[in-house]
């Protein structure tokens, strides 16, 4: 399952962030890493970007990037 497929209000744990090595640090340093708890809150008026709560911090992530966040079943 991927982050952009979460239902509104649903939570899960991140399994893997499927991005090139260069971008990995961007996620990691902001507190988004494998094992972190992620909840989907809402999407913007035009369905993009998506608002997540990850380990208590609110993040806006575009749909195509959220698609790269794989979740644990």
């Amino acid at each position, binding site marked *: 399952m991927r982050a952009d497929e979460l239902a509104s209000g649903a939570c899960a744990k991140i399994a893997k962030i499927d*991005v*090139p090595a*260069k*971008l990995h*640090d*961007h*996620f*990691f*340093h*902001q*507190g*988004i*890493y494998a094992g972190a708890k992620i909840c989907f*809150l*809402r*999407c*913007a*008026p*035009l*369905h*993009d*970007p998506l*608002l997540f*709560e990850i*380990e*208590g*911090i*609110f*993040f*806006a*992530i*575009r749909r195509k*990037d959220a698609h790269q966040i794989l979740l644990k079943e």
Partner: protein
Amino acid sequence: MKEIAFIGNPNVGKSAWINALAHADLQVGNWAGVTVAKKEAYVNWDQSYHLIDLPGIYALKETQGEEAITQNYLKEHTPDLIVQVIDATDMKRSLYLTLLLRELQIPMMLLLNFMDEVEKHGMLIETEKLSRRLQVPIICASALDRNDYDKVKKALLCHVNDTVFYYPLLNPLKEHQFTQLLSYIKSKIQTVESDAKAIFRLGIGVVNEDAAIMHHLHLLQIDDGVMRYQKQLADWDQLRMDAVESMMGYVHADMKKRNAFTYKLDQILLHRFWGLPLFAVVFFFVLLVIFRGSAPWTAFIQYLIQDYCGAVCAKILGDVPAWVRALIQNGLLAGVGSVLSFVPLMAYMYGAMAVLEESGYMARIAFLMDRIMRFFHLSGRSFVAFVLGFGCNVPAIYATRTIESEALRKRTALLVPFMSCGARLPVYVLFAGAFFGNQAPYVIILLYAIGIWIALVLSFLLHQFENHTTKAQTLYLMQLPPYRLPRMKMIMQKIKQEVRGYVKKTMSLVIWVIIVLWALTYFPNGSLQDSYLAQAAKPVSIAFEPLGFGTNWKSVAALPSGIIAKESVIGFLGQLADASAAEMPFVFQDETKQLPKRLADTFFASMTLQGQKEEDTTKTIALLWHDENAKARAFSFLVYILLSVPCIMTLQALRKEYGLRTMLASLLLMSLLPYLVCFLLYQGLSLCHLLFASL
């Protein structure tokens, strides 16, 4: 002199603290952009200290953007003390940075900020245990509590002389492996570099795969030997995260409680249907407050400097040569007066921006607008830069640093000057007021809209010229801070800083422009029509006749002054207007008695958002053009001001951020475009007028 560096994640309140500790000694770099300036201060406590505030970072690996500034600073300087400012309500990410900073082996102190919120949300942080574990002193404080300032200052003085050696926080196996690595390095290196800290640094460089250190080891021919250890400790970053996780055991926080208010408010402000319309309403309201709230103050200051002080000067000067009197009254006072009179507008503008930032709404604006912006090949963050640009273009250009891709950054920066900055507003207000009377506000809104529309169209065009082969590896990851009630104190601080910068710039730059321009309008013989400026402007203005406004040379003459600073246009036109203003009798005693009442009236008018009553200067501006096409000419002039070359400070910012080529591109774009657009506009308008007149 001892150096104390303030480091931390973005938005933890570093600036608030350095402000609190340094007070009036704070020096801010020329333009205090939102998160950019290297704020520093030289203070004298028990001895001299250099305090420096570095841009927010999450880690030390970044090689570009703001974070690189901090990274490079730490490479080149070794502060005597690092104060890591931490948002106590968001400890996890800060603790990661703490571990990174400890590896530098520079004495550290943690300053837990936002303690007022910690209390409010019933959080508990076992600071003693944390401090012992980290070997770092921890002090808890809130930047809003004056009593805490002394506490923090004492702690700084206490720890600035510490000598430390921080051990990495590892499990026994990894600790053993790391110690082996250090022993290996020590055994291979000659005595010169056998200092414990130096060896430690080399060891850290190995596990971090730091290129510089690996190269150094290569020169010492031990880089092959350390490979084995490097492989063993390849999960160093994960080890740090493990350490952070274990330390979070000392932090007892209920994130749900802290975020409760934000959840609720976001339901409304980020609503699927109502989010955007609400934003439009908020935006409109903010503009209303800015313009209507500041206008009475503007009028008051204009009165105070030009009329009141003007009369004082006249009395004091008495019998001086006519040109001296003219220089002081029509040159200095009139010019400076008109420019300074817009300080209220600046103050309101920066205040509004600060409120949007502090409350957390600014990030939501980017969130709401991102999809729409992407239609124009821009980004939600571009929109934030544009919004800032309505205040002043310079911080807006620096704000483009946070945008995801280089090409996008450049393009946004080129488009920022199309957002009508606060300095252009006085020109709009004057002209629209003079030529369009009651419809002035609509004309002004139309101007803003034209600027935005042209910027968006250009975005499309410029996007076509960009290199599409590199399928942009862009990542949009924007943190939305929890909603916070903006504190008056912080807002006032920000306003004070910006206004100070504005006034300084006015005094140093604009004043000379005004004096020079005044001289050009006065000499050779005191008559405006014969002046040097008129002689130069008249032939040039012929080129501007097809644009409508060239029929009066004064408008063309005012244009170059806009390159120095957009406000100069007003100062300049103010002088031209004064030359033909009728002398009104000024009874000094009466006016002085009236002063308090005037002040009170101004205050009231400002609070009730009444805006400005008609001004004398408006009447004289209205004389610039007076044929049946006067309105079209005025409008064309305004559009020209809107689109023409940005002020020197903006060009400078472009050059600093994006290089000479980008600056020249902007120069070219905003010289040719206004001519073309105004030409078409005026010709079109006068044609319509003709058609309608004949109907």
